[in-house]
């Protein structure tokens, strides 16, 4: 089925995507590890704003990063796989940093302190903190891997071809979703294998995690080489943020241009907000129902369950779209086809798995004792659910909501195929204008998205600090 040329392409794509995933997580983890090695005051004052900004950059499409870096790279004749990898790492660094922060935050203080009384801090980092944070780190890596596997637009800019280009070329030629599906099978198989591997690896790790906070302790003392790497990772963050920002601001030229782009895109803005809010809300509800079952499932069923839940992540976006169109454009489906519910469904298929992952982690961390006491004292189930269960799981709910919200805002491949006529998202508009090369307009819209996400990020940060979820 696959020729030598395709095999080489396939292997190179795996190498490129795995490399991107690894770099994203290494830089993210190094930067996030300062949670344990810096004094908290330094963290709060200097690094938190940097981290928030860096994470919010997830709203800037990789293509915008690519264009900003391409200006620089072309000047010095830098191209090829390395250049493309660097740009993807820059674009996905928010994923790496976000998952690493989550992972390091999950490590209970008591676990670390118990280790510190017995062994060197560097060994505590290596043998205790990293393994406990590993499920989150690996999840971030799979995520970056899958994203990279499907995005051929960035490599194309640096004259590199990857396997998904082949899939699209096939699709473009045949207009038959079956053939590209066959071609994408190897990719889906590899992605699924990685998911299985990681689910089985993290099975042990996820057990027995509970949240516990003690007082602020002295930061971990790490060897010089590690501190140097941390500093390099921290320095990369402002580079990651400023390169596209500066490029965007330069292109926008006048502040009034931002206003003009918002005004012109106000309908898309409204639709994007509605779509993303709805998708995120439903995904969270779906995840809430499912995560509890997954967490409580017998361990022999768990692996299968996880693979089923995560499988949609391995499917290329246009296939999700075409699949839904084929399925729902049958007679008698009019109540859903051509309505807002189609893109909601498409985005749920693509991103709800991540909400399940986030909530499962949160559920693992919940104090069973508190839930048990609620079941004794509650007036009825709803009362207990609203007053105890919901507030306890709130940080997880909010993170899951945000992850789905953000990804839905940026989704293109599937949304384009199922969005109701007359409605389009901000991302669809950005990509549309990208072709025209109207950089002012794109820059204005991207800056709008950034401002939007910054304010969302800040609100969520406030909610988190008020519910005491702040480390």
């Amino acid at each position, binding site marked *: 089925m696959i020729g030598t040329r395709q095999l080489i392409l396939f292997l190179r794509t795996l190498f490129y995507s795995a490399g991107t995933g690894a770099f994203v997580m290494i830089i993210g983890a190094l930067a996030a590890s300062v949670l344990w090695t810096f004094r908290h005051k330094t963290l709060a004052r200097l690094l938190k704003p940097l981290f928030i900004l860096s994470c919010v950059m997830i709203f800037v499409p990789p293509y915008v990063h690519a264009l900003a870096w391409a200006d620089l790279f072309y000047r010095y004749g830098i191209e090829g796989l390395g250049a493309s990898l660097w740009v993807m790492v820059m674009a996905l660094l928010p994923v790496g940093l976000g998952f690493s922060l989550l992972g390091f935050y999950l490590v*209970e203080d*008591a*676990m670390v*302190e*118990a*280790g*510190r*009384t*017995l*062994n*060197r*801090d560097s060994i505590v980092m290596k*043998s*205790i903190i990293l*393994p*406990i944070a*590993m499920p989150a780190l690996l999840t971030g890596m799979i995520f970056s891997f899958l994203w990279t596997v499907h995005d051929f637009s960035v490599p194309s800019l640096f004259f590199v071809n990857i396997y998904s280009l082949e899939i699209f070329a096939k699709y473009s030629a045949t207009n038959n979703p079956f053939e590209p599906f066959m071609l994408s099978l190897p990719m889906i198989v590899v992605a699924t294998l990685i998911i299985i591997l990681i689910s089985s690896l993290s099975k*042990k*790790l996820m*057990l*027995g*995690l509970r949240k*516990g906070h*003690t*007082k*602020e*302790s*002295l930061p971990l*003392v790490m060897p010089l080489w590690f501190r140097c790497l941390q500093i390099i990772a921290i320095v990369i963050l402002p580079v990651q943020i400023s390169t596209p920002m500066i490029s965007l601001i330069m292109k926008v030229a006048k502040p009034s241009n931002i206003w003009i782009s918002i005004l012109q895109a106000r309908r898309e803005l409204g639709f994007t907000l509605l779509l993303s809010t709805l998708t995120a809300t439903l995904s969270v509800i779906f995840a809430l129902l499912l995560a509890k079952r997954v967490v409580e499932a017998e361990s022999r069923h768990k692996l299968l369950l996880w693979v089923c839940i995560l499988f949609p992540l391995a499917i290329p976006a246009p296939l999700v779209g075409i699949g839904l169109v084929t399925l729902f454009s049958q007679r008698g489906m009019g109540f859903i086809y051509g309505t807002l519910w189609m893109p909601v469904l498409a985005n749920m298929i693509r991103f709800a798995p991540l909400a399940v992952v986030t909530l499962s982690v949160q559920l693992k961390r919940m104090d069973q004792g508190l839930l048990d006491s609620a079941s004794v004292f509650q007036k009825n189930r709803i009362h207990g659910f609203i007053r105890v269960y919901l507030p306890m799981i709130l940080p997880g709910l909010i993170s899951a909501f945000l992850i789905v919200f953000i990804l839905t805002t940026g989704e293109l491949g599937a949304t384009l195929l199922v969005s109701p006529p007359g409605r389009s998202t901000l991302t669809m508009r950005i990509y549309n204008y990208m072709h025209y090369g109207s950089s002012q307009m794109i820059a204005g819209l991207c800056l709008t998205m950034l401002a939007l996400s910054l304010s969302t990020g800040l609100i969520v940060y406030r909610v988190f600090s008020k519910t005491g979820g702040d480390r």
Partner: protein
Amino acid sequence: MNQSSVLLKINQLCKSYENRKILENIAFEVKSGESIVLMGPSGSGKTTLFRLIIGLEMPDDGEIYLENRLVSSAKESIPPFQRNLGVVFQNPALWPHMNVLSNILFAMQKKDTKHIHEFVDLVIDEMEIRPLLKAYPSRLSGGEARRVSIARALASRPRLMLMDEPLTNLDTALKDRMLEMIKRVTREFETTLIYITHDETESRYISDKCYRLQNGTLTRIEVGNRHCLSSDKLP
């Protein structure tokens, strides 16, 4: 071992959080082989003192000496693992990704788990956890987890053991058995013990030498005079 040599010496120790004084001019000594109990109502600074001795925090003023070596002052702090302490936290804090044996052997430099050091072997038997060695912490009961956590602290053969309310949430029968065990192993392994609790029975069982921490200051309670305990329960 010289029974009368001073193992831990604390000098004019002060610590405050956000302008609230937690510890004020705390001073006391612990001699080798001694078991002492530190009592006090919640929020009195017991855990803060415990964390200062371990080296997880730095004092604002004063010094801590271990075997005549300065380990903590406002300017410097020797890392916790270099203090040769055995520490048992309120929460057993067993690492979920390691089995019981790996948890216990964490402090050992050698990774060779096949040749368990004779001493560790002894500790395992004393704490009655041999059948649990391959199990992961999530499978342990509350009592088992405490025993493993004490074994882990003992395994590195510390000169000084610190226990911060290690028996909270255990039932009376189990608590009694554990107290018995703690008393036995500290005596057998000639370990000096600082035991933090607010439970009168526990304190009486561990030692007659009792310190009471309240309003940031430390008072010695003489043998037989346990009046402090009833006042502890007052707000």
